[in-house]
């Protein structure tokens, strides 16, 4: 698995190197002002310098995202499960949820700020609200796509509703649930940073607004790169969890 990864990743790695190379060269040749587009080398130097000051901001964002995401995931899992078991609830609430997803959650932010103040709570709610929906949908569809033949076997064997859920529906839905969680993980980092623009004491978003309002463009790029790295790490951690939980799904599905 590992050596395969390196064999397949040299192309994209090369592409990124070339991209950075062209960027660096054009920034130097055309003498672009640093506050408009800093060269990668400038960003790297800035990163070394500013990192100690940046880390507390990043930890604050990580905390915000983790708490919001955990709530969102929990609510999403519960919602998806409820929708699966109670058709009435699904029919009543599901359309409402879909409509609610058409409201950009970030426009709710001012309202949340009014209701919950400037603390961490409104930002956590925003993160939770963006991350719960993909998980609820993925959980529901995973649970509803239970293999008919396995279901028939369980029913013939007289499995109770609880056994059906624990031994068949839930494990069967796990791959689907995990893809929902992965989508949510990426969303939640993004949303967390954007939510911090609205006002916070600390956080990557705050660092970004401060940097951009003083035209310290290299710092903005540092924040962007760190946000990307954070998002990727988050995604990778969940992919790792997925591999631990779903060892059977590597190749084709079993009979």
């Amino acid at each position: 698995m590992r050596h395969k990864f390196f064999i397949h990743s040299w192309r994209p790695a090369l592409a990124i190197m070339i991209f950075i190379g062209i960027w660096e060269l054009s920034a130097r040749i055309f003498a672009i002002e640093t506050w408009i587009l800093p060269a990668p080398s400038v960003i790297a130097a800035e990163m070394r310098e500013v990192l100690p000051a940046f880390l507390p901001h990043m930890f604050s964002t990580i905390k915000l995202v983790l708490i919001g995401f955990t709530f969102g995931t929990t609510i999403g899992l519960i919602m998806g499960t409820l929708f699966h078991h109670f058709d009435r609830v699904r029919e009543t609430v599901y359309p409402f949820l879909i409509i609610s997803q058409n409201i950009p959650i970030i426009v709710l932010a001012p309202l949340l700020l009014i209701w919950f103040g400037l603390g961490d709570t409104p930002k956590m709610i925003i993160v939770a609200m963006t991350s719960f929906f993909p998980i609820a949908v993925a959980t529901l569809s995973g649970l509803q796509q239970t293999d008919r033949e396995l279901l028939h076997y369980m029913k013939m064997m007289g499995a109770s509703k609880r056994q059906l859920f624990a031994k068949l529906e839930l494990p069967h839905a796990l791959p689907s649930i995990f893809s929902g969680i992965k989508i949510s993980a990426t969303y939640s980092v993004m949303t967390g940073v954007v939510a911090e623009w609205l006002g916070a004491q600390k956080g990557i978003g705050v660092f970004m607004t401060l940097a951009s309002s003083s035209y310290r463009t290299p710092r903005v790029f540092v924040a962007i790169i760190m946000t990307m790295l954070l998002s990727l790490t988050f995604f990778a951690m969940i992919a790792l969890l997925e591999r631990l939980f779903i060892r059977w799904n590597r190749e084709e599905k079993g009979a």
Partner: protein
Amino acid sequence: MTLSLKNISKSFGDRKILHNISLDMEEGEFVSLLGPSGSGKSTLFSLIGGLLVPDEGDIWLDGQVITNKSGHISYMPQQPSLFPWRTVLDNTLLGQELSGKKDLTEAKRLLEKANLGDMIGAYPHQLSGGMRQRVAFIRALLSPQPIMLLDEPFSALDAFTRLDMQKWLLETWEEYEQSILFITHDIEEALFLSDKIVILSSHPAEIKEIVHVPFGRPRDESLLLSYDFLDWKKELTEKIQNKPQVKSKIS
């Protein structure tokens, strides 16, 4: 444990699927339901399994009505229906997990005996078709219910594997002696395996005849090519096709 079906009829809308099916199964008996595909045999299984309610008639298990009650029989479906996230061993234990106690030693012993000893920790997608069916049969055998319903379990296998599976099934089952109700549309398979063959007609399925198979046990492959066996096969074929009988060996 004896299973009795008493005058079972079932329709779906205007279509009558089963008409007046009555059948008694003794303890430790191997009974085959022989009939064309789509003759409602699987519907009969769903009735016995308690998933469907008959329009008429009742199902009795050991003097108790089990009509519309599930969990009284053990089941092996046409597709192996193994759970892809469970290892071979955990798959065989599923029936016991649902009702009863897990018996790890016995499961391992049966898997060893089925030449699956090395595969205990493997996942179903790593097994061949015949291996999967063996795991599915062991799962049914280990389930605590005294009666097993087997729904054309070997129909998806190639001829060589099928014969191996039939021999293996006989060997394994003869030691256990649970009752088996077996659906098949293969005359040879029914003759080779059963004590009793129930010949069904289709549209709606009715019992045409119940035939007692005279071969003793244990049975082995050589039976398949004996004149006796071939004679019986011929007679059964004629019965199913409604041809006039030349000589009546079967009463």
